[in-house]
Every structure is written in structure tokens, then in C-alpha cells.
């Protein structure tokens, strides 16, 4: 009984819960801001990188190569290392603009760099899943390469990749907590401060609850989209 009491007291004490709530909530709002900013940037930049990777012709080879190097590097590097490199490395350069940003900006930059690399691959799979005959049909009508992409290929590709894209965004939401390592006062950091002050871990549970409540709706929504797609595809196959 004694042990159970201690566990409950350390992790889910009601008083600590109430006490930690305001600070952790204030921190979590920073997570939400980082998340939305990074997601918006990732959506746009990843599409750009995916399109560059698909460019045809020999003259586009350097661009394609750069895109491949970028995705390989940032998919392979753990986010925490990218956060250190951006959050501590860039200020250390003592350059104008890029060395004088807030930790919040560096945090968003690190998240964007890493997740753009993931989402590029998602977009690319979507673009490649559109049958080449769609592109032929568009080009045969006189549409240029980029018009065919814009009006015919990308709209179909994006519709197809929404579920995997949302899955990556669930990952991004949670990974905003890692940005604590460069000193952004977000939920995990606030929870740690609380815990260090009161020798109680309930604050981490509070932060976890926030993340879970944010993730579950998105996960259910993703499941719903996948189910709708499967129903449609089954109906189309009949």
C-alpha cells in the first residue's frame, strides 16, 4: 500500500496537478504555436522539394541531387541533434539575422528542417502514384509541364497523401517537446521546472495529458479519412 501511495503521490497527485497546470498550460501554448508554424512551413516547402526531386532532364540534375542530399541528411539525423546544431550552432556563428533569432524561431526551424524531409517523401510517393497517363492527357492538351503538375498531378497526389501526411504531423506535434533542449519555455520545460522545484513528477503527466488530448482527435480523423478512402475504393472496384 505504501509503495502505491508513493507512486500516486509522485505521478498523479491532485494538488501537484492543480499547481503545475497553469505553467504547463502556458508552455503547451508555445508547443501549439511551434507546431502550427512548422506544419504550415513543412506543407509548402516539402511540396517544393518533392517537385524539385521529380524535375525531368539532365539540366535539372544538380537540383535533383541537392534535394536528395537534403532529404537523406535530415531524415537520417535525429531531431535532437538538429535542434542543437540550429539552436546553439547558428547563434555561435555571430552573423547578422541568422544568429540573432529567439530560441523559439530556432526550434521551429529545426522542426521544419527535419519534417520537411519526411513530408517530401510523402508528397513524392503521392506524385508518383498518379498514373503517367494523367500527365500525358494534360500535356496532350497543350498544358506545360508545370501546368500539368499544378492542375492535374498535384491535386490528385495531395488528396491521396493526406492520411500519411497527418501521421507525420502527429509525430511533429509530439516532437515539439524535444525543442526543450535548446531552452524554449514549452510544456516539457515547464514540467521539468516544476518537478525540479517540488520533487514531484505530476507536472510531466500534465504535459503528457495535453499532448494526448491534442493527438487523439487528429489520429481519429486520420483513421476516418482512411476508412472513407477504402470504402470509396471498394465501391469503385465493384
Amino acid at each position, binding site marked *: 500500500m505504501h509503495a502505491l501511495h508513493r507512486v500516486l503521490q509522485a505521478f498523479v497527485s491532485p494538488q501537484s496537478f492543480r499547481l503545475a497546470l497553469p505553467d504547463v498550460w502556458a508552455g503547451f501554448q508555445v508547443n501549439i504555436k511551434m507546431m502550427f508554424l512548422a506544419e504550415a512551413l513543412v506543407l509548402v516547402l516539402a511540396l517544393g522539394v518533392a517537385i524539385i526531386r521529380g524535375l525531368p532532364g539532365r539540366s535539372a540534375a544538380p537540383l535533383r541531387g541537392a534535394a536528395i542530399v537534403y532529404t537523406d541528411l535530415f531524415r537520417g539525423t535525429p531531431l535532437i541533434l538538429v535542434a542543437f546544431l540550429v539552436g546553439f550552432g547558428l547563434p555561435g556563428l555571430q552573423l547578422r539575422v541568422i544568429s540573432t533569432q529567439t530560441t523559439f524561431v530556432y526550434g521551429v526551424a529545426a522542426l521544419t528542417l527535419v519534417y520537411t524531409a519526411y513530408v517530401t517523401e510523402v508528397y513524392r510517393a503521392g506524385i508518383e502514384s498518379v498514373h503517367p497517363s494523367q500527365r500525358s492527357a494534360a500535356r*496532350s492538351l497543350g*498544358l506545360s509541364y508545370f*501546368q500539368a503538375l499544378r492542375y*492535374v498531378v498535384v*491535386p490528385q497526389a495531395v488528396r491521396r497523401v493526406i492520411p500519411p501526411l497527418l501521421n507525420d504531423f502527429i509525430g511533429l506535434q509530439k516532437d515539439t517537446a524535444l525543442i526543450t533542449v535548446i531552452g524554449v519555455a514549452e510544456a516539457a520545460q515547464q514540467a521539468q521546472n516544476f518537478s525540479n522545484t517540488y520533487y514531484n513528477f505530476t507536472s510531466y503527466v500534465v504535459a503528457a495529458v495535453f499532448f494526448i488530448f491534442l493527438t487523439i482527435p487528429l489520429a481519429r480523423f486520420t483513421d476516418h479519412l482512411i476508412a472513407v478512402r477504402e470504402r470509396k475504393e471498394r465501391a469503385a472496384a465493384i
Partner: protein
Amino acid sequence: MSFVEVENVSKSFGDNVVLRNVTLEVAEHEVVCLIGASGSGKSTLLRCINLLEPIDEGRIVVDGDLITNGKVDANAIRREIGIVFQAFNLFPHMTVLQNVTLAPRRVRNLRRGEAEASARELLRRIGLEDKAAEYPDRLSGGQQQRVAIVRALAMQPKLMLLDEITSALDPQLVSEVLNLVRELADFGMTMIIATHEMSFAREVASKVCFLDGGVILEEGDAKDIFSAPSEPRTREFLARIIEAGRL
């Protein structure tokens, strides 16, 4: 001078030679049918004329313009040449009306109202005006293929290329599509048609070309080719078609 001149065109995919030294002339308002087994090069020839496939050797001239020297604006050439595919290839994320107006709006820069008015007029002529707001997957194969033809016609092409456009259709839907092609032929549209519909070819074509192994083995008047083919391979092919009940 011919409207379309295909001169000594060769095309390979890797080691696979698909067209060997093909020469073909099509006069304005003429309807030429390409017949031959699958894989004989009919589709590739059409795709080469529309610059969807680059050719390895030879030249193609359309309406006096050399289109295969690599310097032309391929988009400008394709604008003037319509092609309709076996698998329709309508854009599934767009309504019928959007499918038909996409190229006039984005390529010809017509205003939306203008493009939609002429698209509706074309749809009315083929009896599909009431489907304008539907998505392609709500249409029958025959209806989809007629929309695909109208989509190409909306660009007011000088030449239409039809690539086995009835091959993917249920038999009872073939005639509605062929009727539309017949109308185009009567209207004077210059067309090159790859087809397995031999009786249709006999009826509309002023010239029939038999392709075999990437070569135009025999060409001539439709009635000559069908009643008195000179090449043994043509006779063999036609015999098999007759056996299958397709002529």
C-alpha cells in the same frame, strides 16, 4: 502538300524497335485508319505525332511546320493536335465541365465564362449537357470517352488522333462513340485513327494502313485493303479478325 507528313520515322524503347522507317501522308480533311495487331506500333505512331514520345530518326511535318527538330515549342504543337486515349484519361478530380474547360482556360487563356459557354455547347451536341457537373466516375465508359473527345475538341484542334478509343468499352457502348467520330469525319476533321473496329474503318477511312512489327506493310483504299489485301501478313491478320467475328 499533305497536312501531315511522317517521313522515315523510327522509334525504339531500349532494344525494342517499335517503329521502323514509317512514312505516312495524310491530306487535310482526310481520315486515315491504322490497323494491325496490338504492339504493331499504332499507338506509338500517334504518340510520336503528338510529341508525347520523341522519335529517334526521321521527321514529322504538321500543317507545314516541322515539329520534330527539337527546337519547336512542344506545347504550342500539342495545342493544335487533339489526342484521345483508349483509357479515356479524364481527370478524376474535376467535373466534366472542368475537364473540358481546363485547357481552353489555362492554355488558350479564355475567360471562364467564355470557356464554359463553349464547353456546354459541345456537351449539348453530344447529349451530355446534364452531366456537366458530374465527376467522371459517375459516367458510363461511353459517356466518359465522348467527354474525352469533346475535351480535345474544345481546343479546336487542326488534327485529331484517336488511339483505340473503343477498345476499353463494353460492346453496347461502342456505337455511341463511333457515331460521334463519324460526325467529326463528316464535318471534315482530319483524323488518324488507330482502331480494331474494321467495319468502322472500312466505312470512314479514305486510307487504311496495316502495321506489322513497326512497319506500314500495306496501305491503300479501305475497300482494296479489306477485299483484296496484297500482303500475306495483311490477309492473315484480316482472316483472324473475321474469325473473331469483328468484320
